[in-house]
């Protein structure tokens, strides 16, 4: 099925080439039935630039740096939705997911200079209850480092997809395997094996209007026992679950829930209305209504 040539009658003309670009360090693919105009592309680029400026833990001029210095910062449109989700993830995981985990990541070497060298003992994140938030405005204790790695990428996928929907498209937005599907027909998505990227452990049937995100500790690891999924309560990398996939109404929820599954079983995430698959030391598991097949 490499050819996308349409049957002559059902489609009057071929679908446009997917729009591909690199942003926030990952490869994006946007599938649409109509070309995305230059103006619309520039609009997406502006959105991504603005969000990176506000939320990146590695910018000295950004919102995260100002928060760290003790300022009260308005994190802009959409921030309330993301921070509300973090409230839910925090409660569902008894504090294992906490957006103030940034300092703990720095200690383990996931820092602005990307030393990837551990330079201290693991540190617990400041309690999320120490943050004060009104709407999109946040204040955290001086020195606390905001890190939205658990759900931020999915949230950005939603923001990009929403902007394209508002421009009249029915897009499927894929940022390195985190996918918001606003197209008109289901798509099939392979679930990448955490030990071998040429293998799939299953296939998801992703219906229009749903999102799929995956998380795995395999690729973002930089040393013995060191990777990016930290338990905020201890500052130590989680053990046990090595990969997870979640289907949800939004990519933000799917992304955040995929991270939460490293700490709690899916029953704890019932309020988020998700279907999930995950791999732990006993093998591959799915929730009863997971929309797809797994090869076990």
């Amino acid at each position, binding site marked *: *099925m490499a050819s996308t040539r349409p049957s002559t009658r059902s489609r009057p003309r071929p679908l446009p080439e997917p729009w*591909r*670009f*690199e*942003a*926030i*360090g*990952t*490869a994006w*693919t946007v599938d649409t039935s109509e070309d995305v105009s230059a103006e619309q*592309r520039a609009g997406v*680029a502006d959105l991504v*630039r603005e*969000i*990176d400026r506000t939320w*990146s833990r*590695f*910018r000295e001029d950004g919102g995260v740096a100002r928060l760290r210095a003790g300022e009260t910062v308005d994190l802009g449109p959409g921030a309330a939705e993301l921070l509300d989700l973090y409230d839910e993830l925090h409660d569902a995981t008894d504090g294992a997911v906490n957006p103030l985990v940034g300092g703990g*990541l720095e200690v383990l*070497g996931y820092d602005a200079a*990307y030393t*990837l060298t551990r330079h201290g003992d693991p540190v617990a994140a400041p309690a999320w209850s120490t943050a004060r938030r009104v709407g999109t405005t946040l204040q955290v204790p001086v020195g606390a480092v905001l*890190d*939205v*790695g658990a759900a*931020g*990428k999915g949230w*950005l996928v939603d923001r990009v997809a929403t902007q394209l929907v508002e421009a009249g498209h029915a897009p499927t937005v*894929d940022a*390195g*395997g985190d*996918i918001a599907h606003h197209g008109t027909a289901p*798509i*099939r*998505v*392979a*679930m*990448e094996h*955490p*030990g*071998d990227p*040429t293998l*799939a*452990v299953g*296939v998801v049937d992703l219906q229009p209007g749903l999102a*799929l995100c*995956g998380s*795995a*500790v395999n*690729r*973002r*690891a930089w*040393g013995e026992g*060191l990777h*990016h999924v930290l338990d905020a309560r201890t500052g130590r990398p989680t053990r046990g679950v090595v*990969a997870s996939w979640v289907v949800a109404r939004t990519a933000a929820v799917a992304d955040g829930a995929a991270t939460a599954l490293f700490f709690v079983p899916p029953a704890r995430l019932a309020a988020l209305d998700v279907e999930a698959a995950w*791999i732990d030391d006993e093998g*591959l598991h799915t929730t009863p209504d997971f929309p797809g097949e797994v*090869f*076990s």
Partner: protein
Amino acid sequence: MTHLSRSKKLAMSGAAAVLMLTAACGGGSDTESESTDSSSSDETTEDASSTETATTYTVGDYSAEGSYQTPGGTQSVEVELSLEADGTITAVTVTPQADGGNSEQFQTKFAGGIADEVVGTKIDDLDVSKVSGSSLTSGGFNAAVDEIKAEAAA
């Protein structure tokens, strides 16, 4: 010994590429450029050969570093590979950057150990349009390979 000096030279130019990449990501202007990268379903190590078919390369072992940003932070990987004169890549190692003697691939020791128990099917054999997992290193990997091939062009 020639391999050693070659590796060193490329490691240095790799570092320059890291800075450029980081700057580009920070500015966000890269979002407007078309990428020739394939979708994640065929992100394999052979990707980088496309436009350079007429070029010949200095045979040898090379390494370079690629770096890129995510909402969670900057990622960095070291890529080591062996290049044939026609540009064919014969051996590749990708190492997440780690401290001195501790750069052993964590993937093998932890994720691989558990995940080996899980059944897999070749993605190429499946009728799928996308892949979901943790394919975040592709940006850094492709940048490192491009850097090596540019430097190695004879």
